[in-house]
Structure formats: structure tokens, C-alpha cells
């Protein structure tokens, strides 16, 4: 009897493993049914994600704020002075203001280059259990969004539309390990390929091995055929380190991406690009160093006490 039970157990395990292998094979062969299953799941999930986004919005950036505590100390001290009622109002308003600021900067950026954009709110961030860097936005095919469209943040490139559902869309962020973009360096016009590394620092590989890159060089998107997946001229990031190892086929560098992916609240999807390439028009202004006042104190030693 026990032997029969064990046999059934083994049969069940083998059946499950075979089913999983069958699914992998079907998916790798590009069977549309499985992609349809993923789309259907997303369609079912999107109302819940919207509701969840609204419910947790006051606490969404809690951990991000904690990590930037030093920078926001003054703000926190100011908020402490407020009473409990005003505090909760301020938290909600702060969230709305941040999104408004992001939206204004986004429209400025898109307006300068003449991009036609659709704005959307981030409603979910992909789980990193699969090592992918994605977000879900609250606009989809019904709003005119299609696969492989450029996604902008207030400070530059955020990513690309990976999948589109009726009312939502999945964005692959520029930090995703599978993300690749052709770039050119502002000014020198050298071209290269930027690859995501899972964090805000990306890897740049120059195409021409005779050209050089410097720390501080600004990278812009080079643009794609028919402006998809990438429109030209979008600020991507700036070079923070150059790899000068001897014997390398092409020069490589580390790039810091402009977009702060931890606080991404609103994004714009470029649905129409200008007929004229914006060139270097979107190169961000270099930050002006804030003068730090120095105070010199001359200490005069007091005479030593004498008895």
C-alpha cells in the first residue's frame, strides 16, 4: 500500500516537472498562448495595483527617505514643528507636489525637444526576485501607448515600454540588466552602447577604439530607426569613470544615470518625435557649486596663571 503511495507521489512529481519543462520549451519557442496568459494576468492585476498604489502612497518612499535622512534633515525638523493633523495633510500634499514637480520638469524636457508625450503615474514597481528592473504605469494601449516607446523621467531617460496591456504598461528601466541603448556623447558626437547593470551606474562601451571619453562627458540617446525604441537627444547620464586598461578592444566607462529610479512617480511616454533632431538641446546645465562660507577663528592664548 505504502509502495503504491510512493509510486503515485513520484508520478505526480515527474508530471509536474515535465509540465514545467514543457512550459519553458513553449515559451522559448514563442508560443503566443503563454504571452496571452501573462497579459491576462496583468489585466486582472491592474485594478488591484491601482488600489494598492493609492492605499500605500503616503508610505511608498518611506525607506528611500530614511536612506536620504541626512539630506532631508532640515525638512524633517521643520515638519516636526507642525502638529499631528497638519503633518498628515503635509505628507499627502508632499506626495502630490513631488509628482507635480516631476510632471512640470518632464513637460519642460519634452517641450524643449518637441516630443509628443503621454504622461502616466507609476502604479507598481516590479519585484526584484527575478533580478529585473521594471515599473508598471497607469496608461496602456487605450491611451495610445505601444511597445518599444521611449520613457522619460523629469531628468532624462527612464526606460522603454516592454509590454502594453489595455490600461497599463510595463516599463523596462534603464537599470535593467537586459537594457541596451545606443548613445552619443554631447559635443564630440562619439557613439557607443550603454548597458544596464542593475543599479544607477551603467556600463558604456564605445564603438570606435580610436576615440576617447572623459569623466564628466554627457550622454544622449542616439535615436533609432522610426524613433522606436529610442528618440534622439534624450539625456541619459554622465561619465563618472573611464576604464583605461591596456589591450581593451574598445574603451569602456562607467556612467551615472540622470534618473533617480528610487523616487520615480510620474513618467512620460514619447508617442511622437520631432522631425528635426534636437541635437544637444537637452544637455542639462552643469550644477553650480554652492559657495561654502569659511570662517577663520584666530585663537589668542590667554596668559598662563601665575601664583
Amino acid at each position: 500500500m505504502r509502495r503504491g503511495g510512493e509510486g503515485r507521489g513520484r508520478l505526480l512529481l515527474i508530471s509536474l516537472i515535465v509540465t514545467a519543462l514543457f512550459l519553458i520549451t513553449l515559451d522559448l519557442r514563442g508560443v503566443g498562448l503563454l504571452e496571452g496568459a501573462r497579459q491576462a494576468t496583468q489585466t486582472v492585476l491592474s485594478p488591484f495595483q491601482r488600489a494598492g498604489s493609492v492605499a500605500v502612497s503616503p508610505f511608498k518612499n518611506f525607506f528611500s527617505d530614511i536612506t536620504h535622512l541626512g539630506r532631508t534633515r532640515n525638512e524633517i525638523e521643520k515638519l516636526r514643528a507642525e502638529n499631528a493633523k497638519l503633518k498628515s495633510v503635509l505628507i499627502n500634499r508632499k506626495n502630490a507636489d513631488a509628482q507635480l514637480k516631476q510632471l512640470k520638469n518632464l513637460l519642460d524636457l519634452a517641450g524643449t525637444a518637441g516630443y509628443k508625450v503621454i504622461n502616466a503615474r507609476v502604479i507598481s514597481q516590479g519585484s526584484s526576485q527575478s533580478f529585473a528592473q521594471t515599473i508598471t504605469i497607469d496608461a496602456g494601449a487605450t491611451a495610445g501607448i505601444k511597445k518599444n516607446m521611449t520613457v522619460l523621467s523629469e531628468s532624462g531617460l527612464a526606460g522603454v515600454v516592454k509590454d502594453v496591456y489595455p490600461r497599463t504598461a510595463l516599463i523596462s528601466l534603464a537599470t535593467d540588466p537586459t537594457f541596451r541603448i545606443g548613445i552619443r556623447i554631447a559635443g564630440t558626437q562619439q557613439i557607443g552602447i550603454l548597458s544596464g547593470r542593475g543599479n544607477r551606474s551603467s556600463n558604456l562601451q564605445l564603438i570606435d577604439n580610436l576615440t576617447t571619453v572623459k569623466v564628466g562627458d554627457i550622454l544622449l540617446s542616439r535615436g533609432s530607426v522610426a524613433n522606436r525604441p529610442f528618440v534622439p537627444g534624450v539625456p541619459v547620464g554622465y561619465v563618472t569613470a573611464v576604464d583605461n586598461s591596456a589591450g581593451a578592444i574598445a574603451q569602456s566607462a562607467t556612467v551615472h544615470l540622470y534618473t533617480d529610479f528610487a523616487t520615480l512617480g510620474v513618467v512620460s511616454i514619447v508617442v511622437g518625435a520631432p522631425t528635426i533632431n534636437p541635437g544637444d538641446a537637452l544637455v542639462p546645465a552643469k550644477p553650480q557649486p554652492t559657495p561654502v562660507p569659511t570662517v577663520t577663528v584666530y585663537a589668542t592664548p590667554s596668559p598662563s596663571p601665575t601664583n
Partner: protein
Amino acid sequence: MLIRQLSLAASLFFVVYLIQESVINQFRLPGGGFSILLIFTLVWAILSTPEIAALGGFLAGLLMDLSQSSSGPIGQWTLLMIAACYVAGYLGSGNEILAGNPLGFTFFTAAATFFIEIAYVVTGALLGVQAGSFGQVLITLLGISLWTLVVTPILLPIFSRLHELIFNTRSPL
């Protein structure tokens, strides 16, 4: 009777998946955060027989594969979760060290999460899925494991009670 229990368990898996996708994924947790579905499935597997654990793993893996944030092919998580849950069920059923030992349970779950994620990276590499730089993968692996270590003791009594209610068994915890 078994069909009723399995249907209830399947609904529960779906609810946990819904919580993961609509609430937990909203938080920008440092180090990659945690997967409540992964923790739930592992706890469930340890408390179950290997066959039931494998079935749970199949369902949870399928849901994880259907998640929009999953970068691998459909079936990759399913395969890993079947194997992981079967092993967890095999090691957990009748294990005197784990019985009545929430600390052991927690460490077992965190270690299992760590190894499942490593297996995901390795099988992903074989299937052509990129996981990022070595440093980033390491940070995510450690982050997810540490979060699991923190969150499991909080969720363990709830998950254990739910398992007890559905399968009418006495919880070992």
C-alpha cells in the same frame, strides 16, 4: 475532501500573490525587498508532505512566472519551485529539529530563499536571462535573504495557522 482542501489552498496562494503584486511591490525596499509568496510557499511546503509541497510549488511557481516582473521564460520559476518545495517538504515532514522551533523554521526559510534565488540566477544564465553585474546580484541575494529572515517570524504564525485550518492538522509550531 482532498479536492476541497487543494482548492482552498489554491485560492490562498492566489490571495498571497495578489498581496505581493498590489501591495508589497509598491514599497521601494532597500536590498530588493522580499517575496511574501516565496515565504508563504516555503512555509507551506515545510509543513506539508512532499507531494502536496510540490503541488504548492507548482502553483506558486506558475503565478511567479505569470508576474509581469518575471524576466525568465514561463516555466522557469515553476520548475525551480517544484524542486525546492519537494525538497523542503521532504526535509520538513516529521523533522524533529523543525517541530516546535520557529527559529529553525525561519532560518530554514531564509536559507531556502537564498538557494532558490541562486538557482534562479544559474538556470537563468543557462536560458539566456541576464541578472546584472555580480555585485548587484550578490546585493539582491543577500537583501532578499535578510528580508526573509526579518519578515518570516512575523508571518509564520499566520501561515502556519492557515495551513492548520485547511488541512486539519496540528501545527508543529
